[in-house]
């Protein structure tokens, strides 16, 4: 049933993932409409209007691939030749030029001025920055054949030394050049919207429903991924002047860092394995180191490579330690790594929103599974506590205790009413303490001792025995799960006959090496016939004690018991409970 339900929840996520995947591939597929590219240019520093002339002899200018052009002076010129295919003009549709560069420029087409992108200047103060993505229509009269393109440029306001300041120069169908980013933008917005919806949901769940930190990390991770997807596509979505490009790149790097830091926080928080602090310290160190890589693209790639592979390693460890639901996270991380390695160049430009969406989906699935598991475990713990409470109370409502006590009371009332009154008081005190403590998972040792003493008082009168408890030197303020020693006392009283000679129980506390050692000695004088129901009750009694200790201390306690000889050479049944000393346990 449980598995079925999860599968139902996972199915929509898969469908969404597949849709996102296909749509991103369609972007890649239609990314190259009919267009001509200016691949190489001649570069010359200086400024001369004659350089716009197609007849100008630029043979002594150095030729450089466009994307390797460096600004050669305060103002510099690029000259190149581009061939217009007759087919492009056949449709009669307007054609245009699209220029992507970190520069302001003036474009001359066959010597004629075609347009200004910003204002070219000799210094930062005289230059007005142009759009990083500039589209300009070509004259309707343009003919097929070779044309001269001259670009008068200045690039004083880049703010950094980019690996490449000039990206591309295209001639093509004007409308399809203008539309090129539309598809991309649509899907960017779609996936960013999805990521933000997931992100907000989990951030709010954390803030309002007080859920675990994993909710917060996953929420912020999805929000940051949505933001990165948007910022990556900002050029196509809104356009901006080239001087702002450094801010966009810085933002991308910051977001890439945030995403990977959050990813690490999520996987280490979701799957808390040992050595978490050291792992985070080392990985964050490498993350910071990758910020020193030379280009912004390399920085982002480094951050993702470190973050994804470290998270991958961590989740693989988690699966090995039994967190089977971490498998989904592994699948998502592996997919991202594969796409990253396979498409190193296109990763940030085309695959980012696809992989980030998919990664978030996979993390979401593993988070939902783990969250469900944790909730079931939590419910089981609560149920266990409730059961222990009931068990403790029932032991005092069970006929053997209650009816024998009442019968003894009846006898005292008829024979020695004062003793009966005192016994009623003791019984009242015991039941009152019991009602107080049974709901709690831990109580002060002093309260436990009071419970034991009132029980001994009742039993001493009921059994006509002299019973005492010596707990000298124990720390009465330290905590202990309720009715642990009370139960041990009950067991001892069931198994032993203390008639004739006073019986003194003894509790001692020792603290060493971060451990609290509680030693409980019960005088060992077994009854002749152990055919009582005691064999059954011993089992439930000790089970109760162990369950209570486990509830408070997990596996960090030990419980041993057995017969031995006390310091005064009397036989005792000794129970030794070792608890961790730090406050971590019973709270």
């Amino acid at each position, binding site marked *: 049933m449980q598995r079925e339900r999860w599968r139902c929840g996972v199915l929509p996520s898969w469908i969404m993932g597949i849709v996102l995947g296909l749509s991103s591939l369609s972007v890649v597929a239609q990314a190259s409409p009919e267009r001509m590219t200016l691949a190489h240019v001649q570069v010359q520093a200086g400024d001369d209007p004659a350089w716009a002339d197609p007849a100008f002899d630029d043979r002594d200018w150095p030729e450089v691939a466009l994307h390797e052009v460096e600004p050669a002076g305060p103002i510099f010129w690029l000259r190149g030749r581009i061939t217009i295919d007759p087919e492009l003009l056949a449709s009669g549709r307007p054609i245009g030029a699209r220029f992507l560069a970190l520069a302001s420029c003036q474009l001359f087409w066959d010597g004629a001025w075609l347009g200004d992108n910003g204002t070219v200047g000799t210094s930062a103060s005289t230059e007005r920055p142009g759009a990083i993505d500039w589209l300009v229509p070509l004259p309707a009269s343009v003919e097929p054949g070779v044309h001269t393109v001259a670009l008068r440029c200045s690039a004083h306001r880049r703010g950094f030394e980019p690996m490449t300041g000039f990206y591309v120069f295209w001639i093509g169908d004007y409308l399809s050049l203008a539309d090129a980013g539309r598809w991309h933008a649509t899907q960017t917005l779609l996936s960013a919207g999805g990521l933000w919806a997931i992100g907000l949901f989990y951030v709010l769940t954390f803030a309002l429903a007080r859920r675990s930190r994993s909710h917060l990390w996953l929420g912020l991770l999805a929000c940051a991924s949505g933001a990165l997807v948007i910022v990556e596509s900002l050029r196509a979505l809104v356009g901006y002047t080239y001087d702002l490009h450094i801010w966009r790149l810085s933002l991308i790097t910051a977001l890439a860092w945030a995403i990977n830091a959050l990813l690490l926080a999520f996987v280490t928080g979701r799957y808390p394995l040992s050595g978490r602090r050291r792992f985070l310290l080392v990985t964050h160190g490498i993350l910071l180191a990758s910020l020193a890589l030379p280009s912004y693209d390399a920085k982002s790639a480094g951050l993702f490579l470190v973050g994804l592979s470290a998270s991958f390693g961590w989740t693989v460890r988690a699966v090995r330690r039994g967190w089977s639901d971490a498998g989904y996270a592994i699948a998502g991380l592996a997919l991202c790594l594969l796409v990253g390695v396979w498409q190193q160049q296109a990763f940030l430009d085309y695959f980012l929103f696809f992989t980030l969406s998919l990664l978030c989906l996979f993390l979401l699935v593993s988070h939902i599974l783990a969250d469900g598991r944790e909730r079931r475990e939590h419910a089981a713990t609560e149920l266990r506590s409730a059961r222990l409470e009931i068990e403790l109370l029932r032991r005092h409502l069970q006929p053997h205790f209650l*009816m*024998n006590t009442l*019968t003894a009371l009846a006898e005292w009332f008829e024979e020695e009413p004062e003793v009966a009154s005192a016994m009623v008081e003791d019984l009242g005190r015991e039941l009152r303490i019991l009602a107080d403590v049974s709901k709690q998972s831990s109580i002060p040792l002093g309260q436990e001792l009071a419970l034991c003493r009132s029980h001994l008082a009742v039993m001493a009168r009921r*059994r006509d025995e002299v019973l005492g408890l010596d707990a000298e030197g124990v720390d009465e303020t330290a905590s202990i799960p309720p009715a642990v020693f009370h139960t041990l006392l009950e067991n001892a009283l069931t198994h032993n006959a203390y008639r004739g000679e006073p019986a003194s129980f003894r509790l001692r506390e020792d603290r060493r090496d971060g451990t609290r050692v509680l030693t409980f000695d019960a005088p060992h004088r077994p009854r002749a016939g152990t*055919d009582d129901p005691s064999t*059954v009750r011993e089992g439930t009694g000790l089970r109760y004690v162990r369950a209570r200790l486990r509830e408070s201390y997990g596996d960090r306690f030990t419980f041993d018991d057995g017969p031995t000889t006390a310091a005064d050479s009397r036989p005792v049944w000794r129970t030794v409970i070792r608890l961790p000393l730090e406050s971590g346990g019973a709270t």
Partner: protein
Amino acid sequence: MRVLVVEDEAVVARRLRRLIGEILGSDLERLDVIDHLGDAIDRVFETPYDLVFLDLSLHGDDGFDLLRHAVSGAFHTIVVSAHTDRALEAFELGVLDFVPKPFGRDRLARAIGRARGQGPSPRRLRQLAVRRAGQLTLVPIEQLVYVRAADDYAELHTADGRVLLHDKTLAKLEALLPEPFERVHRSYLVDLRRARRLESEPGSRYRLVLADGTDIPVGRTRVAALRKRLV
């Protein structure tokens, strides 16, 4: 009357001792108190008690094992227990009464009255425990055809022809055996569901013929009542 009290709670044992003494008065020949049955069971069977008060915690099965042994004895067994939820089972095993804790003098007096043949008996026995050489044999009541007195014992005659000797007297078994069993003669208890006809013999003597052909003598004083039941 010779009485044994088996009770491990000191004050409860004291209460039983005191109340039994008060109720039986001079009829009390002997009163022993032990705190558990366990290994002492054989000694208990050797002592000629008339009545045993037994505190068994009937919570586990051990209590019932002991009880099965106890009810095979010559004495009547009265259970004094906190576990009232198992009273019916105890009755089916053959205890004469079940006194729930806590108890007062009146309730205890009623139980002792039953043991002395006063007041109604429970008659809810479902199986009879028979001790033979320390071993217990359980005889379901459906298997029992009739019971014949044999000195201080009783012969159980079963449908498959077996004859087993029970430690209890016929009078004690009469107090325990359920309704269809009828005392037809000083020495006979018969399951009337198995009776076919009542025949008279010369000398105004009567006999009951059972389905399997067995003849059971019928006491003269019991004929009228028996005839009424058989019609």
